[in-house]
C-alpha cells in the first residue's frame, strides 16, 4: 500500500499538486531558520577567542560546503533512479538540484576564501578539502554542460544521469587522492576544525542555518522541478485544465524566471 503511495507522486500531476502545497512552507522554513540562525550567530554567539569575529562567516560557509556535497549525492541518487527505473521525475529532480548544488559549491569556496585571508593569510591554499571542493565544482559544471548539450532532452538527461553516477563513484577517490597528495607535499598543517569546544550558541546557530540551507535547497530544487514538469507536460490534459480552471494555481506554478539561478543562465540552461 505504501509503495503505491510513493509512486503516486512520481506522476507529474500529483507532483505538481503536492509541491504546490509544500513550497510555501519550505520557503517560509528556509527564511525563518536562516534568519534565526543568523541572529543567534551574529548577536548572541560570543566572538571566538582566537579568531575574533572573522569566524562568523562559518554560518554560511559550513552549511554551504555540506550542502554542496549532499546535493551531489542526491543528484547522483536521482540519476541512478532515472537510469534504472526510467522515472522521468527523477531526471527532473536531478537537473533541478544541480544549479543549487553548483551555487553552494561556489559559495563554499568563496566564503572559504574570505575566511582564509584573515585566518591563514591567504585566499587560497592547496589543502585537501579545498582542492576536492574545487573539483566538486568542476563536476557540477560538467554535469550542467552535458545536461544541456543535446537537442533531445531525453538523451541529455540520460547522459547527464550516467555522468552523475560515474562522478559519485569518483568522488571518494578524488577526495582520498587529494588528501594523500597534499600530505606528501606539506603535511597536514591546516585543518578546518576549530578549537575543539564550541559554545552552545555557536552550535545552535550552525544547526539553524544548516536547516535553513536544507529547506532552501529543497524549495529551490522543487520550484525548478515544478516549472520543468509544467514545461514538459506541455499540452497534457491536466495542464490544460490547470490553465483554464485554476488560474491562481497555474500562476503559482509558473515563476520559471525566479527559479533559474544566474549561473544556470550563464550555462545556457533553458529556464
Amino acid at each position, binding site marked *: 500500500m505504501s509503495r503505491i503511495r510513493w509512486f503516486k507522486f512520481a506522476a507529474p500531476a500529483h507532483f505538481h499538486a503536492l509541491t504546490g502545497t509544500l513550497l510555501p512552507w519550505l520557503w517560509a522554513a528556509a527564511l525563518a531558520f536562516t534568519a534565526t540562525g543568523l541572529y543567534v550567530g551574529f548577536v548572541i554567539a560570543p566572538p571566538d577567542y582566537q579568531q575574533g569575529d572573522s569566524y562568523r562567516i562559518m554560518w554560511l560557509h559550513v552549511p554551504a560546503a555540506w550542502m554542496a556535497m549532499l546535493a551531489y549525492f542526491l543528484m547522483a541518487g536521482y540519476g541512478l533512479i532515472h537510469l534504472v527505473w526510467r522515472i522521468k521525475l527523477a531526471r527532473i529532480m536531478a537537473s533541478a538540484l544541480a544549479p543549487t548544488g553548483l551555487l553552494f559549491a561556489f559559495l563554499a569556496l568563496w566564503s572559504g576564501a574570505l575566511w582564509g585571508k584573515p585566518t591563514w593569510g591567504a585566499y587560497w591554499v592547496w589543502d585537501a578539502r579545498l582542492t576536492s571542493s574545487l573539483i566538486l565544482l568542476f563536476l557540477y559544471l*560538467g554535469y550542467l554542460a552535458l545536461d544541456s548539450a543535446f*537537442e533531445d532532452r531525453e538523451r541529455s538527461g540520460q547522459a547527464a544521469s*550516467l555522468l552523475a553516477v*560515474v562522478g559519485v563513484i569518483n568522488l571518494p577517490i578524488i577526495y582520498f*587522492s587529494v588528501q594523500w597528495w597534499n600530505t606528501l607535499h606539506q603535511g597536514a598543517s591546516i585543518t578546518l576544525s576549530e578549537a575543539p569546544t564550541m559554545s552552545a550558541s555557536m552550535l545552535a546557530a550552525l544547526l539553524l542555518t544548516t536547516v535553513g540551507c536544507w529547506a532552501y535547497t529543497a524549495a529551490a530544487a522543487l520550484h525548478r522541478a515544478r516549472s520543468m514538469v509544467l514545461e514538459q507536460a506541455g499540452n497534457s490534459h491536466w495542464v490544460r485544465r490547470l490553465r483554464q480552471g485554476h488560474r491562481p494555481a497555474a500562476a503559482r506554478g509558473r515563476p520559471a524566471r525566479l527559479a533559474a539561478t544566474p549561473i544556470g543562465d550563464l550555462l545556457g540552461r533553458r529556464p
Partner: protein
Amino acid sequence: MFQAFIALLHRDLTLVMRRRQDALYGMAFFVIVVSLFPLGMGPEPALLQRIAPGAIWAAALLASLLTLERLFADDCGEHTLESLLLAPQPLSLLVLAKLVAHWLYAGLPLVVIAPLLGLQLGLAPAVQLTLVVSLLLGTPVLTLLGGIAAALTLGARAGNGLMALVLLPLFVPVLILGSGAVEQSLHGASPQGHLLLLAALLVLALSLAPAAIAAALRIALD
C-alpha cells in the same frame, strides 16, 4: 565471443595502420607540450627536474583527451556502432576491444616516448623507470575513463570543450597518483604505494568502465 573481441581489435588496429598520422597526433602533442615547459620556465636543471613529474603527467592527460574524442565518433558517423549494438556478443566486451585498440595506438606510444621526455628534463634512470611504470598503469585508466566521456558526448553540440569539462575532473586521481609516484622516486623514496593505488584504480576502472560505456552508447543510439 573471444573471436569477436579479436576481430574488432584487429579491425581497429588495421584502420589505424591505414591512417598512421592519426595515431601520431597524440604523441606529437605530448612531446610538444612537455617541451613547452622548459621554454616557458627557463632551462635551469634543478627546476626542470622538480616540475618534470607534473608536466609530463599533465601533458599525457591532455594528449589522451585529444585522441579520445575520435574514439567512437568515426564509427558513429559510418553506422558501425549500430551493428556493434545489435551484435549477439555483450556490448561491454566489444567496447573493451575498442578500448584495448585505442590504448595500443594512443596510450602505449606515450609510454614509449616518455623516457625521451624524461631525458629532456634531466631525470635519473631510476626515476625514468618509475615514470614508465606509472604511465603504463595510468594511461589505460585514462582510456577507460575517457571512453565513458567520449560515449556520453557523442554527437553533442560543443563536443570539444564539453569533453574536457566532463573528463578532466575525473582524471584528477590518476594525475595525482601518477605524478606522485614519480615525485616519490625523485626524492629517493619508494613509489610503491602510489603505484599500487594506481593499479587498484586500473582494476576498478577495468571492471566498471566497459559497462558504463556500453550504457552510454545505448543512450547515444537510442
